[in-house]
């Protein structure tokens, strides 16, 4: 990280009269994590903003928010004109929780998937973004903040653990956690995402502080920008280690683990800034800076857009080849999207890699190109600094679980991931609970799926387990 980048936010802090860093940093010890794997891939995003034409359409994806029903209640019809901040779709079970339009414009399409589940509600953006305005809350009033978050749809930016659903408006969470760095492959630099939104971020943290009886905890990396280290009343914890050190679930485990009966909320750093703008200006300004990453992009970098942006402008004239996989998110947890698709509800990264649909002659024995690996049977294991161009080939077929200890290597938590996954497969409630399902969501165990010799769908199994446990509770 360059010197300049570190200085920039602190200058703003100085202007706003913030207290010097040394007086505010509360963390003393660095939490050092040794297990995990930082995958080194080609196509990282340099700290530049790309000037691309704006997306014509934006979409809401209720399917991205666990807790929303497959067919939630639509509050508008195709053809309706909406303002940014107008509620578009509501949860049937919890009608206060809505997803709101990130832009103003006309609803042009409702896309459906299997069993008519609503996958995308597409809004064609107008030339300008016209905001619906909400009465500004007082920062110390829990009720007013709760009210504006719910009516504006910003509530759905909060996620609740256990189970990673949207936050339940009827509970007061024990704590709220924000990870201020992303350690996933090619992930955006969270510090860079906050450029120009520092004030909004700090205000957002104060608003979150009013929602919890406990603390707002920030997880930062050792060389983090000052903004995250002097964030008001929030408690700052430094994490050092490979991915998934930046995963908020791993951070929660080391800060204040989720016990049975605990409810905590998490939110991404950019979304804290959206809440900050909401409480200061009374508008749902769903701005997202998104990192375009991956080996198949001609130009990688950052684009300023909004939640749920159409990916088409990112791709136009910017791809090295035709046969590519488009991923909203990172290569471990992201979702596959079509060229006409949109970014996911929480994603601030868009990755394009090669589609690995070519059979490989004796590929298991004599790999024809280098690939990232945790296995010392490959030469490429011994090249720790090499960056790989990856593709979506699983490099093998699904098999019964044979190897042991692989999952543990990449999960820096006091947890037996393989036993948890097995307990989910045979639906043993007590074991699933005792082995820590409340502490994990898909992203925390995504590396297990990468590393699995038997190519087991770890994240899918875990999601089934999470849904099953939620249903049982």
């Amino acid at each position, binding site marked *: 990280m360059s010197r300049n980048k570190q200085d920039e936010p602190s200058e703003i802090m100085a202007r706003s009269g913030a207290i010097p860093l040394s007086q505010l940093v509360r963390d003393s010890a660095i939490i050092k994590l040794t297990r995990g794997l930082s995958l080194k891939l080609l196509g990282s995003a340099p700290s530049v903003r790309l000037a691309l034409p704006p997306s014509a359409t934006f979409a809401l994806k209720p399917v991205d928010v666990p807790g929303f029903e497959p067919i939630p209640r639509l509050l508008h019809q195709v053809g309706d004109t909406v303002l940014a901040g107008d509620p578009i779709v509501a949860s049937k079970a919890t009608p206060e929780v809505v997803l709101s339009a990130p832009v103003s414009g006309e609803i042009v399409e409702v896309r459906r998937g299997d069993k008519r589940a609503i996958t995308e509600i597409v809004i064609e953006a107008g030339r300008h973004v016209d905001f619906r305005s909400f009465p500004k809350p007082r920062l110390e009033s829990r009720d007013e903040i709760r009210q504006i978050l719910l009516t504006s749809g910003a509530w759905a930016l909060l996620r609740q653990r256990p189970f990673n659903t949207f936050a339940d408006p009827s509970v007061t969470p024990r704590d709220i956690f924000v990870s201020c760095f992303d350690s996933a*492959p090619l992930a955006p630099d969270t510090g860079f995402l906050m450029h120009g939104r520092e004030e909004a971020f700090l205000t957002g943290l104060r608003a979150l502080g009013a929602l919890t009886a406990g603390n707002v905890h920030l997880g930062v990396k050792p060389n983090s920008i000052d903004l995250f280290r002097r964030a008001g009343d929030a408690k700052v914890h430094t994490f050092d280690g490979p991915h998934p050190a930046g995963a908020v679930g791993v951070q929660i485990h080391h800060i204040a683990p989720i016990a049975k009966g605990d409810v905590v909320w998490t939110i991404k750093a950019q979304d804290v800034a959206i809440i900050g703008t909401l409480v200061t200006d009374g508008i749902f300004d769903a701005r997202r800076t998104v990192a375009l990453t991956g080996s198949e992009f001609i130009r990688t970098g950052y684009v300023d857009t909004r939640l749920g942006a159409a990916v088409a402008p990112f791709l136009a004239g910017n791809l090295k080849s035709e046969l590519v996989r488009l991923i909203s998110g990172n290569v471990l947890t992201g979702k596959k999207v079509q060229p006409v698709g949109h970014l996911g509800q929480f994603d601030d990264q868009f990755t394009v890699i090669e589609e690995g649909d070519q059979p490989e002659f004796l590929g298991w024995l004599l790999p024809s190109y280098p690939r990232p690996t945790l296995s010392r049977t490959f030469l490429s294991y011994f090249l720790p600094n090499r960056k790989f161009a990856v593709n979506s080939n699983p*490099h093998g077929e699904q098999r019964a679980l044979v190897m042991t200890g692989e999952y543990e290597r990449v999960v820096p938590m006091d947890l037996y991931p393989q036993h948890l996954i097995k307990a989910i497969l045979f639906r043993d409630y007590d074991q699933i609970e005792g082995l820590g399902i409340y502490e994990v969501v898909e992203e925390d165990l995504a590396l297990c799926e990468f590393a*699995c010799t038997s190519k087991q769908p770890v994240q899918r199994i875990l999601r089934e387990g999470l849904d099953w446990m939620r249903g049982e509770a």
Partner: protein
Amino acid sequence: MKVFRGLLNQAKPHFTKGGKLEKFHYAYDAFETFLFVPGETCSDGTHIKDGIDLKRTMFTVVVALLPCLLFGIWNVGHQHYSATGEFPALAAGLVEKVLLGLIVVLPMVVVSYSVGLGIEFAFAIFRDHPVNEGFLVTGMLIPLIMPPTVPLWMVGLATAFAVVIGKEAFGGTGMNILNVALMARVFLFFAYPPYMAGDIVWVAGDPSRFVDGYSGATPLAVAYSGGLAALDKSYSLEQLFWGAIPGSIGETSVAAIGLGALILVVTGIGSWRIMLSVIVAAAATGLLFQVTGIEPYSGVPPHYHLVMGSVLFAAVFMATDPVTAAQTQPGKYVYGFLIGTSGMVIRVLNPAYPEGWMLAILLMNVFAPLIDHGFISANMKRRNARAL
């Protein structure tokens, strides 16, 4: 490569849905995926996956077994020709020794693989699941832990028993409780004891052609009755290390096993935790026996114990089977340690069994889930305590 692709493409329609061999599509898959890693892509979950798969994992173990196999082939010939007095010197008669070894060992390998894979394919077809690669290793292990004189039909029968009763009955690869290769050996050991133990089974060939006074006694047999004094008269430590001694085909050479262990540990495929704890526990128990002056094996020091019999082969290739071993990392130390101690106890103190590792490992296979249970319940207790 194109030839293979062409052949596969020609055959494929018969095995796809609606084809006349549709039922056998997993058998076809086994061959296709052996030749070509499929061009299918990740559908959900991670979009990229590690290069490692079960084929590569199992193949690595087979490679690690090759030094033992190759040495075993030579040693079968060497033992025979020293017993007959034709080529008693190590360097003499290399071609004859290897040739005889091949004649004895290769058919056993072929029988083991064809019976085992045949059953695996049949189960895969009837149960409609893919063929797992686990048997690639089992099929190699079975001949290596047999005496060279065992009849081929016994190898086939034992393999069939091990695969059907030891593995498929439990649900197939990944589900078995007991080590499959050891199931084959233990079956013969109890069903046909004269073929599996005693002084005459370790050297191939007709004993009437052996030179007068040749006993064929293994170091274990010598040390059991005569202790260190008798052992020193028959076998030098160097001889025990290099392995030109009678014994099961793959178990005799410490050097060859060490090479295999190196491959498994460097690649990370075999658990060094288990290997280390078996060896440490066996040595410690051996030391205890030496110090306390137990009658059998009197005076035999721990390092002799380690280079005799099958302890190292068992520690490196048998105890480390990930399916039947303890699965938690701390559990692996306990599991290995218990194998090491109980194996030595059986070897030294139990007169009914000349060697202890097969039984020690099978016994600990049974206890492995209990060992894991201890560590897992401790983890669960820690977590549940937070809720209070």
